[in-house]
């Protein structure tokens, strides 16, 4: 079809190749760890994007879901010696269930009021973590969380197993987001963001879709949390504060709300920035603040937040135009 389309394919293919071959470039474990963190934050951004970018519900409490995924996974791995995959699944489901519970108030609440409920939820999660000693080990945190072990193979930084596991999960979540967004589900979510009443007048049960958005978003975030727990092998309540919720939100908005590509860039920028700006000490957060303000002023839709100008493909027509191109050539 159009030239742009093939350019896109080439760009995506080379990024995938680069990601697959990255361990061959011989980066230090420190660098690889940061790359893996970037992957985790991309997953987090993709998760929050479903709510903020597509459905228009602003969550200020995604650190809560991240924590539930992380603690759920770690608890089952440590206390019940469950394998990584099962524990991660449990952590994801737990987080998804909490997403369902937190999604219920969306039936009655909107805007700022909903945001404050999500914020309160994350605060409550943090307090529960600090006090539910028998499960979370209180303020001491959970340590010695085993590295993922799949089919008898230990995945760690040294053998790059954990890097490829990250790539796999990231690919899975990206594909999942893509297929959901490009289906009637995604269309409905975007319609809800645009105009709730008009969406209802299309005969759509918007409450169900808002709750679904919460469940999906929370599950993805919980998945990232479970993976994060095994990567860092130690978690405590400090890892899941309000700052984290805000950081994910900034990634989504900086990269470009309602786009998938934007989540990759947003996460990469905000993870790399503090690393390369380390010599700036505390000034780096001042710079960070200025970057946010300047971005919001000059490019509020985010760096990659443009609307696609490509022709919308209508099946049947596509074949026709193919044939025409062939004839012309």
């Amino acid at each position, binding site marked *: 079809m159009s030239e742009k389309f093939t350019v896109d394919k080439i760009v995506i293919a080379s990024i995938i190749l680069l990601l697959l071959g990255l361990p061959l470039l011989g980066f230090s474990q420190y660098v690889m760890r940061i790359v893996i963190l970037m992957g985790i934050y991309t997953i987090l951004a993709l998760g929050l994007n479903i709510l903020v970018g597509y459905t228009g519900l602003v969550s200020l409490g995604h650190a809560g879901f991240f924590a539930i995924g992380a603690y759920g996974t770690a608890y089952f791995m440590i206390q019940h010696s469950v394998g990584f995959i099962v524990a991660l699944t449990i952590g994801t489901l737990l987080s998804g269930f909490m997403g369902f519970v937190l999604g219920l108030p969306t039936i009655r609440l909107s805007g700022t009021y909903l945001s404050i409920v999500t914020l309160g939820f994350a605060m409550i999660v943090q307090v529960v973590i600090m006090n539910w000693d028998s499960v979370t080990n209180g303020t001491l945190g959970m340590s010695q969380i085993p590295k993922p072990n799949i089919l008898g193979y230990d995945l760690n930084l040294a053998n790059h197993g954990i890097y490829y596991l990250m790539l796999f999960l990231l690919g899975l979540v990206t594909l999942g987001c893509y297929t959901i967004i490009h*289906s009637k589900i995604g*269309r409905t979510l975007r319609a809800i963001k*645009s105009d709730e009443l008009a969406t209802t007048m*299309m005969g759509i049960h918007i409450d169900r879709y808002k709750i*679904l958005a919460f469940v999906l978003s929370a599950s993805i975030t919980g998945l990232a949390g479970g993976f994060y727990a095994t990567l860092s092998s130690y978690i405590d309540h400090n890892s899941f504060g309000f700052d984290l919720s805000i950081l994910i939100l900034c990634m989504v908005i900086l990269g470009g709300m309602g786009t998938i590509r934007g989540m990759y860039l947003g996460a990469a920028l905000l993870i790399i920035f503090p690393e390369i700006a380390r010599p700036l000490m505390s000034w780096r957060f001042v710079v960070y603040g200025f970057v946010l303000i300047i971005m919001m002023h000059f490019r509020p839709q985010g760096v990659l937040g443009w609307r696609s100008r*490509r022709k919308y493909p209508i*099946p049947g027509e596509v074949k026709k135009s193919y044939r025409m191109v062939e004839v012309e050539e």
Partner: protein
Amino acid sequence: MNLLRAENISLSFGGLTAVNDFNFYINEGQVVSIIGPNGAGKTTLFNILTGIYKVNQGKIYMNEEPIDGLHARKIVSKGIARTFQNIRLFSDMRVIENVLVGAHINTDYSFFDGLFRTKRFYEVENKKKQEGAKLLESLGLEGRLSDYADNLSYGEQRKLEIARAMATGAKLLLLDEPAAGMNHQESEDLRVFISNLKNLGYTILLIEHDMRVVMNVSDYIYVMDYGKKIAEGRPHEIQSNEAVAMAYLGDSEVHL
């Protein structure tokens, strides 16, 4: 048999009676207009019929089935869809996507079909996209299919809103002032467009101030003032009705 019938419906907000003991009906295939001065309760009546407001009294039947008290989204599945006085498109979505959201309730595949891209997903989705494209073509919007809704001209946005309502599969379309803000040529096109809809088998309930449109397309007209029906009849009957002239007293803009 009446397609839609309202019997003695009333609605008041606090002390204000917005709709007062109103009766009307539409037969299948008709174009029926509701006219009246601003604030007469016409849009409130639309909001009642589409389930946004609940009546205090009275009954509403669609195909002899009571629909008053139903949730707005359920009323759509009974075959009633509407447009809004101040256009409410999904402005950040493409023209075809607006139509596809309209077709949502007839787009029959599950969440997992979408997630895992099953055969059913492609079949249904492709069919709906083709139908949507065809619908847009029938309204002369085929060239705008890939555009974003907020880039359309005013007249095109009005048409798209109607297309979106048609996509729900509704047989009865409630159009709230479709000619508002249109120039002479555009409202002339709209008149032809509404006649075409009628020929396609749609039943239309119209609120409109543009009397050129109303008098030319309507089979039957109800006149509302202060929430009450003050007259009803065929266009020529309404044109010679004194009560109607009184309601529009001094309004030289209106040429009945």
